[in-house]
């Protein structure tokens, strides 16, 4: 204990307000976990579709509505069926078949001589690959072929047309997140500029600008969105820019209120009294203090946009096939719950968990940036 008294006191390094906020956020476990989760979802959505062995548009005709499974397709009991189908297309009959390790050896007979090119029917099946003729009878009516069993994994199963749900879910995440960010940023930028202008100009300009916001508020929101769909048709990028342009109203109100209140703060009056110019006040005091609420509201705006996008896609008005989004997948899943519930469950889990994470991060940021508001 004695050395404590003689220790030379280190100069205390100040911590910025942002540093404080970050420290508070780091203590919030739900928010931090959500932050990591969002990072994880973003990474797998952006890079996942490149890593997953299936393209999100590839159709596997032999694997329609396959349930999710950790082991490879075709399942042992499916080989017989796939083989029968392929040989039927060859217009031949199976005499005998057996499996030898990774390869299937099949002997087929036909009433007419079998053309060598017919082995392509086996390759065309999604289950087989690398077919070779092993042996041919002199009259050509009996052929023995061997074919490798193509091992394919569908961890999330496949959809109604035989597309891999894993790659589709990841691709959908890419689209949903991108739209959320895009429309969120559009709404944020418009809202900040509009609100800040109204808040700064004050007086009559503010009055008029805010009445316009009130009028837009009173129109039913869904009416707006449907009209946008009607105008922009099925071009979803344009449409979501437009949706973003509708969602700025809240942001404008928040920013205006903040700007008005910051301008009346004592520290701003003090700065004015010391002769700091408009520009200086704006850069030093107003913008940094506006950033907090803007950041908080942006994190709440993104899930709003994602829900809206999913809602529109659910109605068939948003993203169009073969492009996909979580809303599109959930809509397909909802129609198929009777026989393929994984089509609903996987996309719904991704969407809902992402929305939860965004909300927790938003709440965490609010606590961190605005300790008064707890």
């Amino acid at each position, binding site marked *: 204990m004695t050395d404590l008294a003689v220790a030379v006191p280190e100069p205390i390094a100040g911590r910025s307000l942002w540093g404080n906020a970050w420290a508070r956020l780091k203590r919030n476990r739900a928010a931090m976990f959500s932050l990591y989760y969002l990072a994880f979802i973003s990474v797998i959505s952006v890079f996942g579709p490149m890593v997953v062995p299936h393209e999100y548009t590839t159709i596997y005709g032999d694997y329609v509505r396959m349930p999710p499974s950790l082991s490879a397709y075709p399942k042992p009991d499916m080989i017989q069926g796939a083989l029968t189908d392929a040989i039927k297309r060859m217009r031949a009959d199976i005499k005998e078949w057996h499996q030898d390790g990774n390869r299937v050896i099949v002997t087929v007979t036909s009433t007419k001589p079998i053309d060598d090119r017919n082995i392509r029917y086996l390759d065309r099946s999604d289950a087989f690959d690398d077919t070779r003729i092993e042996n041919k009878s002199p009259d050509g009516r009996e052929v023995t072929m061997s074919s490798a069993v193509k091992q394919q994994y569908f961890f999330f199963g496949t959809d109604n047309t035989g597309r891999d749900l894993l790659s589709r879910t990841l691709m959908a995440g890419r689209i949903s997140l991108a739209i959320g960010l895009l429309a969120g940023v559009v709404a944020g930028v418009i809202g900040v500029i509009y609100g800040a202008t109204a808040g700064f100009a004050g007086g009559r300009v503010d009055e008029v600008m805010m009445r316009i916001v009130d009028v837009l508020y009173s129109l039913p929101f869904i009416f707006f969105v449907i009209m946008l769909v009607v105008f922009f048709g099925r071009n979803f990028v344009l449409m979501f820019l437009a949706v973003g342009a509708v969602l700025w109203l809240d942001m404008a109100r928040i920013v205006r209120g903040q700007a008005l209140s910051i301008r009346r703060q004592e520290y701003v009056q003090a700065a004015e009294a010391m002769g700091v110019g408009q520009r200086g006040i704006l850069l030093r005091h107003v913008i940094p203090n506006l950033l907090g609420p803007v950041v908080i509201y942006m994190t709440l705006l993104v899930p709003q946009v994602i829900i809206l996008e999913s809602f529109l896609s659910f109605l068939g008005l948003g993203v169009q096939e073969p492009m996909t989004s979580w*809303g599109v997948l959930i809509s397909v899943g*909802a129609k198929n*719950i009777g026989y393929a519930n994984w089509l609903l469950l996987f996309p719904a889990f991704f969407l809902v968990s992402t929305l939860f994470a965004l909300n927790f991060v938003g709440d965490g940021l609010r606590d961190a940036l605005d300790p008064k508001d707890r």
Partner: protein
Amino acid sequence: MLRYVFRRLLTAIPTLFVIVTVAFFLIRVAPGGPFNQERGLSPEIRANLEAQFGLNDPLWLQYVHYLGNLLRGSFGPSYNLPDFTVTELFAKGLPISVQLGTSALVLALLLGSILGTIAALNQNKLADYSVIALATAGSTIPTFVIAPVIQLVFGLSWKLLPIGGWGDGALINKVGPVLTLALPQIAIVARLMRGSMIESLRSHHIRTARALGLSDWSVVVKHALRGAVLPIVSFTGPAAAALLTGSIIVETIFSIPGVGRYFVDAALNRDYTLVMGTVVVIALFTIVFNLIVDLLYAVVDPRVRYD
């Protein structure tokens, strides 16, 4: 009081007028028309149809006609469902949507208030955290996820409920849609109630009531509730208007023949009269419910007086 109601209804007229006007011209500016998408319609027939419905008149004349019809209480014929007038469509669908909406609203108000009160009385205890978790879930999970999950769990796995359909209004057919409609609202009401109840429990008259030795039940139900219920009353107005005019998601997923789909379908098909009818009905519901809420305010809070 009556004079206040009368004055409020009078001021609603210009509001309604503005909404009707904006909606009328907005839907007309949109490209396409009601008969453009019909297959196998020869140009002559289309011209005839358009002439019959007066769609070739100048827009202002159509607008005047529409307003005139509206004043006489007629919404006009539906263009895409030519056997029906818009009024008939609403007469058919609105009772269904109103039934579901009312049930959901009542359920949400009751359950939400109870949950919110429980949470407030057990602040920062397990019950409180459970209610908060439920409220977070209810307000985060979108309806179009809740509805199919309810179908999946209660309809397919447990076979307790029918998967969809109206079933001529059988009670069992209403459970799924009402639950789906109510869950997000329960979340909002519970959250509101928790906040206002905590506030209300801190006020002086509650301290006095406790000091007088009143039972917990009496303190909460007779004294605290009255002050705490105000935010919920003001929430009820817009919520009722939204719930009673039908939800497109719920009605689509559960195949309910309500009015929820009218608006989107009509806008996409440029069924002008049906779009306008829906806009007017929604606006009327909003105006009426906001009025009711304002009157309720005076009942709940004696400090509010309308004279």
